[in-house]
């Protein structure tokens, strides 16, 4: 028994030593490469792969959604799109035209808000200040697709997909939040059987469905 313990210990020590070396080695090399940055020997950099922590390993049922994202200015879709009934494309005018729906320029906000009293409305004061200083407002992204995804708002809007189908009932949201997982399987559910495919393509709907399942439709 004692010997068994010894064997186990010896193995554990070996493994530990190996791991320590393996752990130190990259950092030692990183220093070396930093040094050689000047002379340029290695055209590579060292990212530790974030995919190590890919949640896709787990079968995703009910993907946890993002928390409501706080914004630098507490903008409410509920008021603009809900109460006031503004059209989505009034502000997100690029949604019909390009890949990105885009966030409106401050000038678009000021188109109305220049006329609106800011007394006791601290959020509007922030907007006004940003406008006066010409500062860019850094909105936080609620919906963020990976860089390897090609997504065209135009194609979807033109095809007749309602904004709410992906973004949820935005007109009721005080603080914007993401309601869809935006994961590949979620996209595919519509690409396989969205009613707009039949409406738009009629007899060619089958071909279009096949095209929509082509990986290169969305991956770039």
């Amino acid at each position: 028994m004692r010997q068994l313990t010894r064997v186990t210990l010896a193995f554990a020590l070996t493994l530990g030593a190996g791991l320590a070396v393996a752990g130190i080695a990259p950092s030692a090399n990183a220093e070396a490469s930093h040094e050689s940055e000047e002379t340029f020997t290695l055209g590579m950099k060292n990212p530790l792969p974030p995919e190590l922590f890919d949640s896709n390993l787990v079968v995703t049922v009910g993907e946890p959604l993002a928390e409501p994202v706080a914004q630098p200015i507490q903008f409410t879709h509920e008021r603009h799109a809900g109460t006031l009934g503004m059209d989505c494309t009034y502000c997100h005018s690029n949604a019909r035209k390009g890949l990105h729906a885009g966030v409106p320029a401050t000038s678009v906000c000021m188109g109305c808000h220049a006329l609106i009293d800011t007394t006791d409305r601290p959020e509007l004061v922030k907007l006004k200040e940003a406008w006066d200083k010409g500062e860019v407002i850094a909105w936080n992204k609620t919906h963020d697709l990976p860089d390897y995804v090609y997504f065209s708002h135009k194609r979807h809007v033109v095809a007749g997909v309602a904004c709410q189908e992906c973004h949820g009932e935005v007109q009721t949201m005080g603080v914007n939040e993401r309601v869809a997982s935006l994961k590949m399987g979620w996209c595919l559910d519509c690409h396989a059987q969205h009613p707009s495919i039949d409406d738009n393509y009629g007899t060619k709907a089958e071909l279009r469905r096949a095209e929509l399942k082509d990986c290169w439709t969305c991956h770039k």
Partner: protein
Amino acid sequence: MQGLNRRDFLKVGAVATTATAAACTYDYKVPQEHVLPYVVNPENVQPGLASYYATACHGCASACGVVARNKDGRVVGVEGNPDHPLAASLCARGHFDLYAAYSPDRVAGPTDGRTALSWADADKKVADAVAAARAAGKAVAWLGAYRSGTVDALLGELVAGGLRRVHWEPMGVDALLAAARQAYGVDELPVYELGGAHTIVTFGHDFLNTAFGAMAMARGWAQAKDPARGEFVARMVSFEARLGSSSSQADHWFAAAPGSEARVAFALARLCAEAKGYTGPAAALLGAVDVAGAAAAAGLDEARLKQVAGWLAAGPSVVLPGGPSTEGADATALAVATLLCNEVLGNVGHSVVFGRGARPGQVNSYADVKALVDDAAAGKVGVLILDGLDLVHLAPGDLAVADALGKCDLVVQLANEPNDSSGDKTLLLPVGSGFEHWSDARVEAGVAVLGQPAMIPLKDSRGLGDFVLGLVKSNPAPAPAAVEGAVPDAAPVVTTASLAAAAATFGDLVKARWAAVYKPADADLATWWVEVQAKGVFAVSLPVASVVWQAATLPEVGAGLAAGEKALVLFAGHLHDGRWANVPWAQELPDPISTYFWNTWVEVNPKTAESLGLAEKDLVKLTTDTGTVEVGWFGSPAVREGTFALVAGNGKQVGKYAKGRGANAMKLLASSTDASGSLATGGLKVVATRVSGNSGVHALCGNLDQDGRPIAVAVNVDDAVKNLHGEAASIVPLHHIPIDERVTAAGSVDMFPEPQHPTYRFALTIDNNACNGCGACQIACAMENNTPFVGPDQLQKGRTMVWIRMDRFFEGEGENPDIRYLPALCQQCSHAPCEGVCPVLATYHNLDGLNAMIYNRCVGTRYCANNCPYAARRFNYHTWQWPESYHLMLNPDLSTREMGVMEKCTFCVQRTRAAKDLYRDVAFGEREPGRPVNMSQNTVPDEALRKLTACAAACPTDAITFGNWNDEKSTVRAIGESPRAYTLLGELNTKPGVRYVARINHNAPANAGHHGGGHHEAPAGGHDAGGHGAPAGDHGTHPAAPAAEPAHGAEHKEG
């Protein structure tokens, strides 16, 4: 099953995982990303949509047009300007120009030695120094590369104010210009029209790559070699000791001894005159030419010379001048001799045209440079402005430039990054790139390009024009010269000086001067200017001037090298004279002949190498009177025995990527000049010895020849011409094993049908007959597809990331060199070997006939790459660097790839996707309410596809054509079904989407009657319309559709 497998896997992966967990203890969290909207939306800017600006290329003096693609504020791509009458495409070096604009070495602003200055301080410093120099009676000198257009005119104003001005390039046009002066008394360069020539003789002119006006000549050359134009294929003959990229396409190679080229050219002129019965003004000169002596000196057979003369005399022809490797001590004589050949052949006025005013601005010879440097060394130069020339690097070994620069009171260097000439006291003024500032350039009197800014400057720079304008304003000239007008009816009524005085910025001046010089009198300025900006080019055709031979005597020709002496010749590779040495992609682009990179090497004949006892990794030590270099070697059958061809460009001391790469070939040169003062770069005496060691050179092309395999195929010229109109299905001599009759009897050799391509089957054709391996497609591909450079160490392991491999095969021998190039890219096979083997479905066949590659699904088993017979796949062995500020020019239309994934040519799927998107928009726009859209009426038409991919758009000779094979009227189908077309490794029945068109050779064995063995075409072609299963309606007529690309925006990008 899954549970168990996963458990097994976890056991298996335990070590890797534990090691990982130990190696990286960091908390991974998806960072919050931001959306940054504009404060005020600029007009015409839509996030994610590209704007196009027509501007000018400043890569060399040829002044080609560029269409720069600006995406989200940065220029991310360049293409040739199709409106440019001479150069519709951009060469490889034109692409380097954009990479150089994003160089990480660019200085942040004006720099004095190591201290940053403000522009005001810098201006004051220059003004003070100029004033001090004036006061001390010292010269203010400008030494730079060729400059044309408004800058040239402004500098002319400064000359009147006392500026000493020298424009020189080491592999420039000074000898040819001097020869034109001698021969015809004109101060302009001849324009060579190769398009109609039946015989092209070259004495080393790099007319397809680095020569002045190369893009126009490349196009002409491709036309001359295209049998469809005139049912004749130009015969090309080369007289030079080393075949370069341009002359590698010669059908006949006469390796004249270095130094004897001028005598050969004179002898050829005499023989041509005899053959042609020439009696013109130069006839009297020819009597003194010793043909036999010239042939003996060159080591050539006189009878063969006569034969060449016979070919020349038999039809339209052109004799091209020398290039760097032949321009030795008799450079001007050689140029005169080639002009004399053209004179006696009656080519002048036809294929050799004067009267266009072709000249890259002011041209000085090396003698002027030496005089200036000598004066500087003597302390006679107060202010020296160095523009674009790295003089310390370029000067011959015996010219002490660094000392001379030290003797100047102030050296102003107009450059974006420090180079070898930047001393501790040099005032470095960043002049930005042509993509950031206004510029213009003039190719010929009737052709000018407008260089409008395509993005806001990356660094605090001031355009070259603005700098010179500032000089002019602070030094008004006493007697302003009138502006020279190109348009006959635009009378010059203003002077550059007066325009300059009125202009606030150089942009204003360019506009004013263009209005004065080029605007037709009746045009409205505002409208005309918008048009010019949109086109980026002003072009008007001028009449051909008739010129008369004037030289009364022939120039003296030296004796050349003594027998047994080894000769050194220099040639320009992708780095040209070294101006691209700090562009890593330029360093990485393999040389077409040796396929070497990132280094300096010498090309020697294998027999010479044997006599020196060179082993593969040995170095060659080359010694001349002025210097010594030790370089690796390449055994090229396309170099004369006893000649050492050394590539110029590398050996710089400064620059993140240039430093320490190779050796400086220029230091082997002496300040010896020919009669007109041109620097001798060929025919130099050299002593070569073997040095053992590790040279670190590596060839990317694995073998010298194609080992008898039908990879790059050549056909006989007669076969090609006879079978132009499909008399034979195929004339390509592919040898393959006949297929069992029982199989062919069944009608198909396929076990499985070709997959369905309902709408598109994207296809590409590559005309090997028009390919000279120039590399433009490779670099255009790299730029479009975000392929990184990997560095010399990685490239030595062959880990190039460029999606197009340029195979080079030496197939001929001796006088029949037959060098073949084959751009090998993903063949987008219909029966692709790569697809079936991917375990994770990362690569598959899509409905457009492409082998899709999904990078983020790839786990990197690399099985697909092993299984690709074309070796067309690239693997990311590391996550490659996109150092500051190259990352700004990444194309956002596709992803960059991380380590461990496979990538390959996608036929620019982002471009086809965008084109399809555009036509889908049209379909939706035309849609009748309540009815489905009609996509079959809105497929992307052939015109929009033909040049859609980056490689097709870049190819200077139009060798690459893209299109939809399903469209029976498409260009790509017409070319792909021509008798010369073949599929690479067709017997594997991979049904590629790429078809090659066989090279035409005048020496290839005749092959008429060969019909491709019957079976080859059936599987490889897959042409049968039924095979695509597409309903006929899908190929209906295309209605007038919008252009695939948005019109080139005229607007100047703001904000």
